[in-house]
């Protein structure tokens, strides 16, 4: 199947491909940037409108620039301290949120797959949604456990895959063989960030409870 020999990609292409994979799995912060910029634009436009209105001798929309400056100068003593603290807290939360968005990597629920050829120089960056991985893992798990699709649920996180088996009452599911099959399948994906597999069934939970109760 995968016998298309990925011809050795030049270093420049490899760099470009690696960059594409990294960009696709991390947030660009575009939405937040647009919202922030739009809010700032609204404030600046309002300020400019007020300036024009006061220069042409018209009534202010909300507050003339002179009044705004005077109020800013005396806000500390003319406002009740509680309101100042409350406003400060709101601003601090907003500021910390913006700073966090700037600093935190912002990984998306996607994973970079190794290239199918198995060679060390990928021709293309393959980025898979975690949901696709979860669905594939569920399929393997239900095939091995011989249960219905509705009786398996999988979730793929940043570092782990959790598979939950719900076999019919009175039936047992072989969690170990499911775990082995899922691990084999996931190893075949050659993910850039390896995922640890955990398989749980109601039985394992029940025996845990027993162990705690004993």
């Amino acid at each position, binding site marked *: 199947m*995968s016998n*298309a020999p990925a*011809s050795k990609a030049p270093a420049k*292409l490899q*760099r*470009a*491909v690696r*960059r*594409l*994979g990294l960009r*696709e799995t*991390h947030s*660009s912060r*575009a939405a937040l*940037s*647009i919202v922030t*910029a*739009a809010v700032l*634009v609204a404030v*600046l436009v309002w*300020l400019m409108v007020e*300036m*024009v209105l006061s220069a042409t001798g018209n009534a202010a929309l909300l507050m003339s620039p002179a009044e705004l*400056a005077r109020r800013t*100068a*005396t*806000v*500390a*003593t003319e406002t009740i*301290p509680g309101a*100042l*603290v409350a*406003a*400060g*807290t709101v*601003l*601090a939360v*907003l*500021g910390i949120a*913006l*700073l966090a*968005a*700037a*600093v935190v990597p912002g990984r998306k629920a996607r994973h970079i*797959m190794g290239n*199918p050829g198995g060679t060390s120089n990928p*021709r*293309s*960056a*393959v*980025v*898979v*949604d975690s*949901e*696709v*991985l979860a*669905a594939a893992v569920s*399929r393997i798990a239900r095939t091995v456990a011989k249960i219905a699709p509705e009786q398996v649920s999988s979730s793929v996180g940043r570092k782990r895959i959790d598979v939950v088996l719900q076999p019919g009452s009175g039936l047992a599911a072989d969690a170990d063989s499911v775990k082995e099959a899922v691990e084999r*399948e996931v190893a075949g*994906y050659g993910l850039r960030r390896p995922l640890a597999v955990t398989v749980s069934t109601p039985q394992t939970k029940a025996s845990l409870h027993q162990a705690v109760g004993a």
Partner: protein
Amino acid sequence: MNGTRRGLNRTLLALLGLLLIAAAGLGILAGTSRGFALSWTEAGMDVWARIQERLGAARIPGTEISWWTVAVFSLLLFATVLLVCWIASQGTGRSNQVAQMQSEAGDTTVDTAVVSQAVKAALAQNTHVLSTSLQSWKTKGGSGITGTGLKLSVQARKGASPVELANDVEHLVTEIDALLGTQIPVLVRITSGTRSKFARSERVA
């Protein structure tokens, strides 16, 4: 894939965040310490008085308006234009040509639609695939004058093996290479979506 300046986004967001935190600090300090609030007002009134003095000293002849007001207005206008540019820079870099070649006889360009149709036709019979889309974007390290890269999105059927899909697509990529005669950077996206949720899964694995 797009040309969004991510470093710029993060730098500006961080700066604004720091600015907000600084303002918040001042507000909380003024709310909790009476002495700080008093000195704020004192300093504020002082500064405001001086500003008014300056404003009065630089009047445009024959009007009530100061040159300073005009300067501040243009500064605000400039900042607004910069902010609009910031918004406009998000998600740019889409192109509709995959490859370009110039020779003595003339220029040759390959439209993205050509490759797109070929890829769609090739994946139409694939039972793992619900839908395919192909876009080209200006990419760092891309080929040709424009430096294009390809983004090939494949919506997978629920439960489809990502390895098999990736193999099939990788095959296509080598064919695209042969078609274009050059290797351009390719991003393959294997996605899930509403169609993946509602389409029935393949029962024969």
